[in-house]
């Protein structure tokens, strides 16, 4: 009968001893995060047009794109592109130019984009412009500031919420775990060379929100069990809580993963990077809920946690 579930991630009576691997988990996580921080500075993130300023023109030529011809046509028009690259099909070409320097750079930026369009249409008649973006230097620095503000404020709101809803130990462990998650995602961005732009800020935030959500569920259960089993050693209790919520943790990760997967596969150039980073973030967020968030609580010490949740009639 189809009315019963056919599949399950983990058998209900399965008790995996996650706490045994806690040191390993923390060490691996710390190493990866430190490596990510290094990657953040060297080679650093590849800034997208939003944050870098400049010009990107994407066009589709009638036949296979002749990059040399396009480049020389641009040079002849007095435009020096920083990159003329292929993307998507062999007919697609992307021309990018960094923001010009000088006093009237804003006006120059806007003029350049028209120049590029004219030059490539003349070189390859029948060329279709798919996208033409020009972002002035003043706008790009503002967008960058606003993006970071959005990220900062959201993070602050999440932290405030956990701080209010849970004891201090939980909040601190959650913060540390989230920072570890975030740094790894930034490292992933640095390695994959996906462009860091406004959409990517949204991806980072969604990962943060999702990861928090995951931790909240596990912490909820730990808190409940702390009240229920007053004599159980903390290590055992954490293991029990993780195991009890394991099917839910994996289930929700799976549905979010399945939802983001088609975006990565069919989303087109705007969303592929966004969705791939999301997928990475989901994997990191899920594993940190299991291997990092709870072990950190154990490090915080059993006594303090027990005290935090004790009631007058205890003992």
């Amino acid at each position: 009968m189809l009315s019963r579930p056919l599949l399950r991630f983990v058998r209900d009576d399965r008790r995996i001893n996650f706490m045994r691997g806690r040191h390993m988990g923390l060490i691996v996580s710390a190493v990866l995060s430190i490596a990510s921080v290094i990657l953040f500075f060297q080679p650093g993130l590849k800034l997208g047009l939003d944050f870098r300023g400049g010009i990107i023109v994407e066009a589709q030529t009638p036949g296979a794109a002749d990059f040399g011809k396009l480049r020389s046509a641009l040079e002849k028009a007095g435009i020096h592109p920083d990159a003329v690259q292929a993307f998507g099909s062999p007919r697609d070409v992307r021309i990018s130019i960094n923001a010009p320097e000088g006093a009237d750079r804003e006006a120059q930026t806007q003029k350049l984009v028209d120049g590029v369009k004219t030059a490539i249409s003349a070189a390859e008649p029948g060329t279709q412009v798919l996208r033409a973006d020009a972002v002035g230097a003043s706008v790009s620095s503002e967008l960058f500031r606003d993006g970071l503000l959005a990220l900062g404020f959201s993070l602050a709101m999440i932290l405030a919420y956990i701080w209010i809803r849970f004891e201090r130990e939980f909040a601190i462990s959650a913060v540390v775990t989230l920072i570890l998650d975030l740094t790894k995602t930034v490292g992933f961005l640095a390695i994959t060379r996906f462009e860091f732009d406004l959409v990517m800020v949204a991806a980072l935030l969604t990962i943060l929100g999702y990861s928090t959500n995951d931790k909240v569920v596990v912490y909820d259960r730990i808190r409940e069990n702390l009240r229920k089993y007053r004599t159980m050693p903390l290590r055992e209790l954490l293991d029990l809580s993780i195991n009890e919520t394991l099917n839910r943790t994996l289930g929700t990760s799976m549905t979010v993963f399945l939802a983001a997967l088609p975006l990565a596969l069919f989303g087109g150039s705007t969303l592929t990077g966004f969705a791939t980073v999301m997928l990475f973030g989901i994997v990191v967020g899920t594993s940190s809920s299991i291997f990092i968030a709870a072990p950190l609580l154990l490090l915080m010490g059993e006594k303090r946690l027990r005290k935090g949740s004790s009631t007058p009639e205890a003992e």
Partner: protein
Amino acid sequence: MMYYSRLRLLGVAGVCLIGLLLCLPNFMRAPTPSLPWRQIHLGLDLRGGSYLLLQLDLKSLEHDRLQSLQDQARQTLLDKSLGYRDFQKDDQTASLSFAPRSDDERAAALKTMQDLPVVVPDEFHVTEANGRIVLTLQHDAMLARARDAVAQSIEIVRRRIDATGAIDPSIAREGDDRIVVELPGVSDPERIKTLLGTTARLTFRLLAPNPSVASPGSTMLEDISTHSQVAVQDHVDVDGTDLTNAGAVIDQQSGGWAVTFQLNSAGATAFANTTRANVGKRFAIVLDNKVIEAPNIINPITAGSGQITGGFDAHSASDLALLLRAGALPAPLAVIEQRTIGPSLGAASIHAGIISLGVGFLLVVVFMVLFYGRFGLYADIALFANLILMVAILSLFQATLTLPGMAGMLLTLGMAVDANILINERIREEVKRGRGPLQALQAGFERATSTIVDSNATAFLAHVMLFVFGTGPVRNFALTITIGIVTTLFTTLLLSRFLVVRWYALARPKELPV
């Protein structure tokens, strides 16, 4: 908890039905134009079109005000027969300064300056330094003027864009000194950029007595008909604000294109007076500080109409006429951000968005049935309702949907079933602990609710922040997710629970399919 009152039942069903009705306008044309037919707007990235961010030139606004303040100050001093020496205008510090003729007149001059009429409150401060009287424009007052200027500019920008025949443009203020223009379907915004980049301030001024050198009270300007420099008096005899109409015509004499204009009565009188008094002299027709032409005044022009011939072609003549009809901008606008999406990319993006949404939805639906059986199926029904309600709310507010917005909808669907998973896992645990079906359901719903609210609250807060501080694509993403969280709470806490309760009431099963 387990028994839904009739009222509540009707409420849940009613919301779903209304949601379904609100979705319909997106898929068909309005049967009659009078119906309130609210649809989701497709963003430029899906429709194709251009986005322009225009920045008002504050410096020029400041410069203009400084110029008029200087004229005003000098005139007032003269009227009161107070003398001044060494009148200076400094654009860098946005200030004017002069030395009074003598120390006796200092106090009177100071008082006169303080009593000058202002356009906005606290517009400039009057101080004394090194024996000079200094008038300094205040930044806040200039910002207030910029806001007014932006409001005026929006009207003019709208008239200019409407005249080009662009369909459904959206023109809105952003911040103190910026305007956002969205032009759906316009994939080559060059003409509009040129039109908006022209201030179109037309003035008629006499040439300086000696047109080859700049004397006090005149400025060297470029004459574009002869490509030379001529000295033109700063005093404006007739201003383009007095124009009532303009049009492009073929000049009878030369056969080339020309622009005719018609002045209102004030303009016509001023024009008549100037031309009558200056027959034989040359006057310049100046557009945005460039001399279009500088003809001799042969006869007084009293009819208040005239013609400008400045080497136009059909295009430039009709564009100038359009600009003159729409009016001059209070200050120049510069494009500082431009994004254009071609129609083919827009269509491809819609395609990508819909395919992703479809495939993602299907994957989640199949997963839920495989892993959660009958209750998974109920979760899927709620998920479908969730999608409908999201579309309904977006339609109701006639919100814009972009590709990142569609991604937000899809991620919402992925996250939404989390609530169902939480409930199901809880019920399952309660069953394992040996509770009967009814108690297990009850305990499951009750205990999972606080966790569901907790986890959605954090996501909600994060995305509201993202909406407030975000710009462009990020905002739309945050908007759909925020709406999605609200609809998720409804569909999971009310609808899917209702389905389970109905099933239980009808089937009265001995054990639960978890």
